[in-house]
């Protein structure tokens, strides 16, 4: 098979570039919102996203930051000793640096609104903690949403709103 002529190859590349940018623009301006949920489109769109994230919207904390998702874990040893880890109090999942610690934002955030992920994430974290604490027999895992009031309400004395939305317990038997 003969390779395409330079003019044809150039035309194809310009067309691909145009299609790529058009897709990005269509997605960010909500032109794909309905299509994305059509049956049969999820896999090809995921594939395209895995290639180059052209099917992605870049909000950067918009429209709002939402509530902060915080995790509290209590590990109970056989002798009754309790190890308490709370992200509100600075627990960073034993990570070595700020960059690694920041990665738990997605872990916490996604498991706050994807119900299927909550059990999986909790089970996974509990398994990790059982491995780190060989004498532990029980792990309690809870997630809380913390939302600060508006600046005006905060000045008026309104406290941050705190709500536990998930908790579970794992025991070794």
């Amino acid at each position, binding site marked *: 098979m003969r390779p395409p002529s330079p003019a044809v190859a150039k035309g194809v590349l310009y067309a691909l570039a145009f299609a790529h*940018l058009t897709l990005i623009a269509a997605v960010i301006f909500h032109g794909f919102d309905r299509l994305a949920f059509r049956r049969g489109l999820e896999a090809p769109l995921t594939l395209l996203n895995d290639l180059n994230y052209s099917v992605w*919207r870049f909000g950067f904390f918009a429209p709002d930051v939402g509530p*902060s998702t915080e995790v509290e874990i209590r590990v109970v040893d056989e002798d009754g000793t309790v190890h308490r880890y709370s992200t*509100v109090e600075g627990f960073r999942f034993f990570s070595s640096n700020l960059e690694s610690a920041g990665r738990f934002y997605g872990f916490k955030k996604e498991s706050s609104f994807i119900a299927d992920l909550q059990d999986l994430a909790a089970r996974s974290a509990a398994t990790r903690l059982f491995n780190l604490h060989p004498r532990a027999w029980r792990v309690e895992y809870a997630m809380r949403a913390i939302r600060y009031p*508006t600046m005006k309400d905060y000045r008026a004395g309104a406290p941050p709103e705190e709500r536990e939305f998930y908790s579970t317990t794992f025991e070794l038997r």
Partner: protein
Amino acid sequence: MSSIRPLSSSARARLNAFFEAPLPPQPLGFLRIAVAGFALVQAALWYPDWQVFFGPDGWLQWEVSRALTLDWSLHLSRIHAALAPLGLSEEQTVTGFFYFYVAAATGLLVGWHTRIFAFCTWVAHFAMMTTIPTFMYGVDIFLHIGLFYLLVMPVAKAYSVDVLQGRVSPDPTWGVTLSLRVLQIHVCLVYLSSGYEKARSVDWWSGNALWRSLVQPDFRQFDFTWLAEWSWLVVALSWFTIVVEAGYCVGMWIPRLRIFWLAAIVALHLGIGICLGLPLFGLIMILLSLAAFGHLALEDARAWRRSPLPAGRLVEAADAT
């Protein structure tokens, strides 16, 4: 009904020149070094926690993370299974994968057999993204976009071993121009999207979205609750963010504004990096803007230095002596 008039010949000529007139490849060389260098810095920071994130018994065990990905995704457990004849343990596979990624990014950084190493780096990063999807955030998405562009764009044409060894020509081509325009337009669309989404939000106009991102525990690095008493400052910073992001796609194309807009976007990302504890995210956004528009801002600055002094200032100088 009036018919759509075709573009005038001068507009068409300008459009052709914009997308086709061969440009020098140095900005693409900078893009390659910036993105590959960034990948190496990120990998170095990740190294102490590598097994904890990617290992089979990390915070997200392979059984769990595999359940979160599609069947055909390149999960590390599948790479381990493919390497089974070598007799490696799961941990050895994960460590070996780290060195493969670092070696590929290093080859890409120096531009040696660039296309091959760009492919290896991109594939490795793809595997990372699919192995721990819940731990990925904006920085990884932009790195992946950057690596995809290094894979398909002629990024070896400047500052590369491939040029030194004569494998790649450093001459300007339409391919360089097309690549640069795609990168520039993509970055403009990213900021337009971000500015547009913020501009649709009441919480951004009132400053409360920025206030919450600073004080809520998720990203809190310092105690900024005192800002509630200085709400005008938060509102001003919010509006500054909206204007800088939404106006990026205009400001970056106006020579007299470009350098200031670039400085504003750098300041914005430095602020995000320091105040929200996202230094790498800030860094990659700055690098992408510099790769797309840095060379133009540099040309603007040089043109200003070359331009003659206004007559009024010359008279003042003469009077002073």
